[in-house]
């Protein structure tokens, strides 16, 4: 009886561990510095997490389908540069759909390689990381992009505006999260994504078109990247070619923190959002504690490994790996 309760506590801890950790962090930071829980601070954290967050939502689909996407960082640089460049050439109304179309084109290319040609997604997106970076540099000629007339355009609304007192990036993040959350948990397509990631062969035998599902996941990821690029461009109104460099790994860290398995088949949009918020609040909380900015990376390292470790420890019922 006692062991049973123990096991139950263990499994609850493991299943909801990330939520518990989140709560503990929030309480600890609030006690340490009351400013932490102020509305201003909360808004500023979520707003600065929105770009990373929107990208993480798309990558969640890719990861659940059993693949990886390391190209989102350099793809985000691409869409930011493209939309800034086109803004002055054809106006914001046309620039935004044109940028989305180009980014989706890149996503479709990756989706074709991974979905239909069944190439290893880690290597394909690693190659695309480099290739898209080259494409961006070629497009911009290595120059920074700036919007000439920063005052006379409504383009700044996506990154800097507020609606009903809430910053627009937060609203976009919430809207995309709610929409994709519904797609993943309420539609047939969402169930197919889990099926393909959980057991691709079984999914194929039950009549799911694996290639098409994976392809669509990469399209979703690309659409999220384009949205993130739009927020980034609108927030800064000018950008370097390397604005998204390294983001792919932070995005992946957030998705993994949210409990998605890299083997595919598990993870949710809600937990991915929690993963993003944990990263954002840790960064903010450590700064409010007066610690150096870079301490957050070390803390993130420890948290990622602990989170994944506890998760798999609960699944195998043993803390330590059985590997001899």
């Amino acid at each position, binding site marked *: 009886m006692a062991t049973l309760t123990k096991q139950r506590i263990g499994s609850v801890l493991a299943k909801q561990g990330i939520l518990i950790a989140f709560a503990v962090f929030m309480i600890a930071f609030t006690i340490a510095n009351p400013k932490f829980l102020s509305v201003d601070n909360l808004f500023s954290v979520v707003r600065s997490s929105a770009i990373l967050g929107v990208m993480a939502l798309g990558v969640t689909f890719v990861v659940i389908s059993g693949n990886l996407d390391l190209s989102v960082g350099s793809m985000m640089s691409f869409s930011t540069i493209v939309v800034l460049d086109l803004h002055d050439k054809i106006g914001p109304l046309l620039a935004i759909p044109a940028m989305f179309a180009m980014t989706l084109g890149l996503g479709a290319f990756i989706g074709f*390689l991974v979905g239909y040609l069944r190439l290893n997604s880690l*290597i394909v997106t690693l190659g695309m*990381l480099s*290739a898209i*970076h080259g494409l961006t540099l070629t497009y911009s000629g*290595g120059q920074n992009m700036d919007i000439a007339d920063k005052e006379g355009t409504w383009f700044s609304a996506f990154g800097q505006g507020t609606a009903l007192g809430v910053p627009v990036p937060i609203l976009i993040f919430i809207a995309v999260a709610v929409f994709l959350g519904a797609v993943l948990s309420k539609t047939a397509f969402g169930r197919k994504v889990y099926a393909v990631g959980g057991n691709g062969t079984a999914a194929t035998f039950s009549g799911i078109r694996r290639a098409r599902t994976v392809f669509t996941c990469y399209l979703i990821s690309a659409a999220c990247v384009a949205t993130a690029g739009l927020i980034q461009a609108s927030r800064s109104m000018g950008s370097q070619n390397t604005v998204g460099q390294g983001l792919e790994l932070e995005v992946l860290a957030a998705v993994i923190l949210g409990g998605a398995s*890299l083997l595919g088949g598990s993870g949710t949009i809600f937990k991915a959002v929690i993963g993003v918020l944990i990263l954002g609040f840790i960064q903010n909380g450590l700064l409010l504690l007066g610690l150096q900015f870079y301490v957050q990376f070390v803390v993130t390292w420890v948290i*990622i490994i602990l989170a994944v470790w506890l998760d798999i420890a609960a699944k195998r019922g043993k803390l*330590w790996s059985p*590997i001899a």
Partner: protein
Amino acid sequence: MQQGTLSKALKSGAIWGFIAFELVFFSVAGEFLSLSDKAFMDFDNMLLLLKQSAPIGIIAMGMTIVMVNGNIDLSVGATFAIAAIILLESMTWPIFAALGDWVIPVAWLLALTAGTLLGALNGLIVWKTGVDAFIVTLGSMLGFRGIVFMFNGENPTSHLNWTLVDFAEAEFLGLATASWVLLAVTLVIWFVMSRTVHGRNAYAIGDNREAAVNAGIRVGPHMMINFAIIGFLAALSAVVFYSESGSVNPNDGQLYELWVITAVVLGGTKITGGAGSVIGTFGGVIAIQLLRKGLGHIGADTSTVNLVIGLILIAVLFLDRQLNVKGKEELKV
């Protein structure tokens, strides 16, 4: 059976064929496009190429072992930066002031020890927790880089020791120190992989971990040793490079993991483990450096280099799949 050997020969030869193609292509294209009169296949140019390959190449040898073993290490760039800082910083510590130039081997030893320990730490975590190496090293990549930044903020760490620079720039039989180190590391790792029990076990574990366990191979210690080796080699790469340059930026080594993995995959190592060769990796390293140099030679800028390398990596993956048509048992969907 025969087709198997044929495709095997094709695969192991492919990287050298690609290098030959690059040499011919850039020589011919250089005649028309190059701004300089110097021929691309100039002997000195090739020696310089070998030297420039060293920082990536030395790490790539370690990555070959780790990938053959069925793991991956994303933290090598950050380990590289930590080792570089320890190398340059420790030479200025007052406790070593009395040593004079004997501080150099001490600094080397400290940097190499740090790299080995960081690698072993990765390996220990992979072994004991059972968390996938991709996640463990993704985390430590962030963590190690954080440590680098905590040390000196955004500022570079510099210390120039002329004895050290002279050593790094010295040439022996026409080859620079860095080239010798690269060749020596290649030879040693080749020996370990093809002539020792540890090497054979690394292949066995990468090919089929269950079977390896059943055969009584202790999987964990082998993985840890391999991570320690790649940590050591990342530090060695830093020692070779920063002995000459004498200044390290906190961002140095970023994206090295991507270059290294690209070289290893080009050289024919399977990302899922169990297959790959050190000589192939050496070919992959040379092929990438040739591509960078060659594209520069015909007047292309860095953007084209990135584009071409990315697409070649994907093309290699595609060709590799076509050459290994197992297809029959696989579902065509």
